[in-house]
Every structure is written in structure tokens, then in C-alpha cells.
């Protein structure tokens, strides 16, 4: 079985993330890392291969040079190969153009199963998995809290406020996984060393047959009109509990008419 796992290199949420002058995410201001939410996808792919005893995992990313770090991190956890789509023209792509590029790269890799995280930790839209299902014309099973593959079928559990639902489809399929699927493993020292030798290919838009003009900031189907830093919240009152903290809190809530 061929598995493609989508991984994104994102600015670390622990840093002070900001926007560049052209309204795109500033990727230089804060150290980048493999999106934590994609680590769950890597973990599930590794488990699918471990459980079935066969399978080949290729990680796919798109983004500037530094995005290859996300591939190396994933490869250090396990898996076989990486593909990095890198092209100046991609800068500033919206979710729609992103899904166009990723779909073209996935088609070239011809996987049986595509696994991705539930959202990126920078854009956080959570729409690319469903867009890829549409573009590739393969079943999309989104927001899986658990994943099982058996006999050419994929079964997921999806939890909503109303119900926990079990859903089944035939492969090929795309699955996005939540952080409920289980903690991702840490790369071992051996894994980190092995990752350095695993093959990583670099593809350009031309390799995918995509015209530069249909992607990037200029081709986006929505425009940013304004960006304002939210004013920091005014420092409030913090009191130590001297035995009547609950009563003082009640006074505060009464003054705000919450009681």
C-alpha cells in the first residue's frame, strides 16, 4: 500500500507570530517547525504500516526552502521518502491554490491512502483535506478520532457534539486525523540519523504542469482588506484568596450584572 502524508512547516505557535508587509504569514520572524497537528497524521501512517506489515510512506510538503525541515522531522519518526514542492510563484497561495498544487503532486504519487492533519496550526482553516477530496475525486473522511485499515477499506470514528459516528469507505481515500488519534512518537537517535539518508525529491510547478499565474498571492480568490493587532487585554485585578476569594469574586460578578 502506498501512503502519502501531508506535512506543513509552520511558524511555532510559542513564538510571536505576525504578518509580513504583503499580508502573508511572516515565516522569517519566528522559528518554523513541523505542524504539531501533522505529527498525528505521521503517527497514524506509521501505525497503519506497522499493523499491516507492509506499506510505503511518502511525505509531501509545499513551501519555501525551510519547509524541507518538516520532511526531515517526519522522516526521523519513520517512513520512506519525501517530496518538496517549492517554487517562488507559490508564495501567498490561498487554500484553493494550495489544494490545486497538492492535488497535482498527490496524483503523481498515485497513493492508495492520503493522511493529513485536521488543520494547520498557522492558517487553521481546516479546509484543505475536503478540497483535496474534491479535486482528486477520492472519498474524504475528515476529522477522524481513530483510523483502521482492513481489506481495502478504511474505517474511521468521527466525534461530534451529538454523536460518535463510524464511517467506512473503500480505498483510495483521504483521511484527516485529529489530536484524539493518539500521541505521536518522538524520533529516536537512530531515526534522526536514518532520516538524513532517506530520499527527498524537489518538484517545481513546471514538474506538476501548473501555470505559475494560477497560484500565489496574486491569484488568491479573497483579499485581505485590513490587519490590526488586537489591543492587549487591560490588566485586571488579581487578588490572593484570603479565605473570602469566592465572595469577592461574587462581588465582581454582581458588579458586572452576571448574578
Amino acid at each position: 500500500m502506498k501512503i502519502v502524508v501531508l506535512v506543513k512547516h509552520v511558524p511555532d505557535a510559542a513564538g510571536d507570530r505576525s504578518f509580513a508587509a504583503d499580508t502573508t504569514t511572516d515565516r522569517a520572524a519566528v522559528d518554523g517547525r513541523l505542524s504539531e497537528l501533522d505529527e498525528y497524521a505521521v503517527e497514524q501512517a506509521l501505525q497503519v504500516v506497522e499493523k499491516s506489515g507492509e506499506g510505503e510512506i511518502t511525505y509531501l510538503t509545499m513551501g519555501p526552502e525551510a519547509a524541507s525541515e518538516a520532511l526531515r522531522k517526519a522522516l526521523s519518526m519513520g517512513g520512506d521518502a519525501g517530496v518538496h514542492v517549492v517554487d517562488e510563484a507559490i508564495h501567498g497561495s490561498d487554500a484553493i491554490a494550495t489544494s490545486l498544487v497538492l492535488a497535482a503532486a498527490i496524483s503523481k504519487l498515485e497513493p492508495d491512502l492520503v493522511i493529513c492533519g485536521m488543520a494547520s496550526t498557522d492558517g487553521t482553516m481546516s479546509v484543505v483535506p475536503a478540497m483535496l477530496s474534491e479535486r482528486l475525486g477520492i472519498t474524504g473522511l475528515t476529522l477522524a478520532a481513530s483510523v483502521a485499515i482492513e481489506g481495502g477499506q478504511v474505517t474511521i470514528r468521527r466525534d461530534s457534539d451529538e454523536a460518535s459516528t463510524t464511517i467506512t469507505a473503500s480505498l483510495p481515500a483521504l483521511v484527516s486525523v485529529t489530536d484524539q488519534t493518539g500521541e505521536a512518537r518522538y524520533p529516536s537517535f537512530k531515526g534522526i540519523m536514518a532520516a538524513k539518508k532517506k530520499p527527498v525529491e524537489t518538484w517545481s510547478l513546471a514538474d506538476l504542469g501548473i501555470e505559475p499565474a494560477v497560484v500565489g498571492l496574486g491569484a488568491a480568490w479573497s483579499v485581505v482588506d485590513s490587519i490590526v493587532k488586537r489591543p492587549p487585554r487591560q490588566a485586571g485585578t488579581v487578588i490572593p484568596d484570603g479565605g473570602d476569594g469566592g465572595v469577592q469574586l461574587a462581588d465582581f460578578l454582581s458588579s458586572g450584572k452576571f448574578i
Partner: protein
Amino acid sequence: MAEVLVLVDHLDGSVRKTTTELLTIARRLGEPSAVFLGAGLDNALETLGRFGAEKVYVVADAEIDGYLIATKTDALLTVVAQASPSAILITSTSEGKEIAARASIRLGSGIITDASDVDENGIATQSAFAASYIIGSKVTHGTPIITVKPNATAPIENLTTPAVVQVSVEYGALSTSARITDVAPRAKSGRPDLTEAAIVVSGGRGVGGAEGFTVIEALADALGAAVGASRAAADAGWYPHAFQVGQTGKTVSPQLYIANGISGAIQHRAGMQTSKTIVAVNKDSEAPIFELADFGVVGDLFAVVPQLTEEIGKRKG
């Protein structure tokens, strides 16, 4: 005036408040039409008319609930082809966002997700980077598809008698390729919906265990509030994941948020930072949650919270 489609968010015809907010926003942009998918129209019609839906498009096929989401996209797009709307508004739930995403590819339309409001020019307000930025943006290509978060605006009544339009849909092979094989309904709490509630009382790792949440629930009930949890509390199995607040849980924006035994990690803040008033109870005076708090008590939540609950009881008489 062109129609603006609002996809109705409902449970067996009981219309969620977010839909009434969307109908209110739709009126700023054009003529509101509701798209009702699934069973229960009779329960929904009164509310949709009260909040100004001029038309209600209805698809009640079994395919709507028997498959995962994509059939709902088929149904919505059939309505779009019929109505040629100037915009499509959908509630920003995980299901709503997926419908929006699929529709944007099929229609070749721009998409904006998680808007906290949309003005009469179609400019949507969004938060970015754990709510540290406010972004205004606009769709410039195709029929704008915007998903809007709960509590975006105060719903305004606008009495209409909606025309009901039955729509017949052809479902694509892709849409019926994912079969639902089992549904295990969740127990209802009887408390307000977490994302719609005016007050949210949350517990974190400091609550110490599932039993500790009875203290949180008691305060919530005294205030008529919803209960939330941090990921640490949800991961530990102390409270169901459906109530998790934060980046990988729910985003809430209530009038009042009370965080108990929650440190205030960036991923938690992402889900509650835009609350009007924030209160924190934490025994560590250095906890980052106090940077956000309008009022904070440094102390043991098991002393402070029950005292507060009791005090509320007294004051309410």
C-alpha cells in the same frame, strides 16, 4: 435584490441560534433564503420566518443523513444552481466548514472561514494567530462562501412568511462513497450549548479528576452556564472531548469566561481570548491566564469555587 443563501444548522428541525444570526447578516447583503437539509422542516419554519427568510429551499432525502457531509454539498449546490445567490453563509462548525470547502472547489468560488462578523460590503472579520490579530477580508472571485462563528451578531427579528421550495437532488458517486455504519448518540447535558452560551465555566488539570468537575458543574448551573474543559482535562478523560475549548476544540466568545485550574497555554487562549470578560482561579500567581483576566483569584479552586457557588445561591435568594 439577489438572494443570499443561509445553510440552516439544526438538529431534527430545532434551529440553532447561529442560523438566526446568519439570517440577520444575510439581510445586510441581500434577500435571505434558507437552505434546509434533512428532516424536521415543520419545527424549523416558524423560526426561519421570524428571522426573515423569504424562501426556504428544502431537501429531505435520506441521503442527507446517511452519508458523510458530501451529500449535503450536492444538495446545497443544487440550490445554488437554482437561486444564483450573491453569497452563501454557513455556520463555522467542522461540518459547515467542510461543506464550504467542497462547495468552493465545485463552484470555483473564494472562501472565508471562521468569520466573527460580515458587514454590508461583504467584508468578513476574522481572528488570526490565536486571536492576536483581527483581519478584514473579502472574497473577490465567484460566489462568496463565508463560514461564520456563533455569537457573530445579535439576531434581529423580521417577520416573513417564507415560500417553501422543494428541491430534488442528484447525488454524485463520490458523495455516497463514505457510508455511515454506526451512530452512537451522546448524552445531553441539559446545559446551554458551549459555543452559544453567554457564560462558560471551564476546568483544567487543576480540577484533578472527573469527580472534581462536579464543583465546576455546580458553578455553571448556578450561573446558567455551559461547562468547558482544557485539553489536559479532556485528554485525561475527566470531561468529554466535545467540551474542550481551544485550538483543537471549540472556540467560544461568551460574555463571561471563568477558567478554573487552567494555566492559559496559547492553544487554550486561541479558543477563549475573545471572551468579553475573563475570570481566572488558579493557585499559581504566575499562571499566564492571569494576563488575560479581568478578575483573578490566586487560590485553591476547591475553596474558591464552592464559596462562589454558595454566594451566588444566597444573592439570587
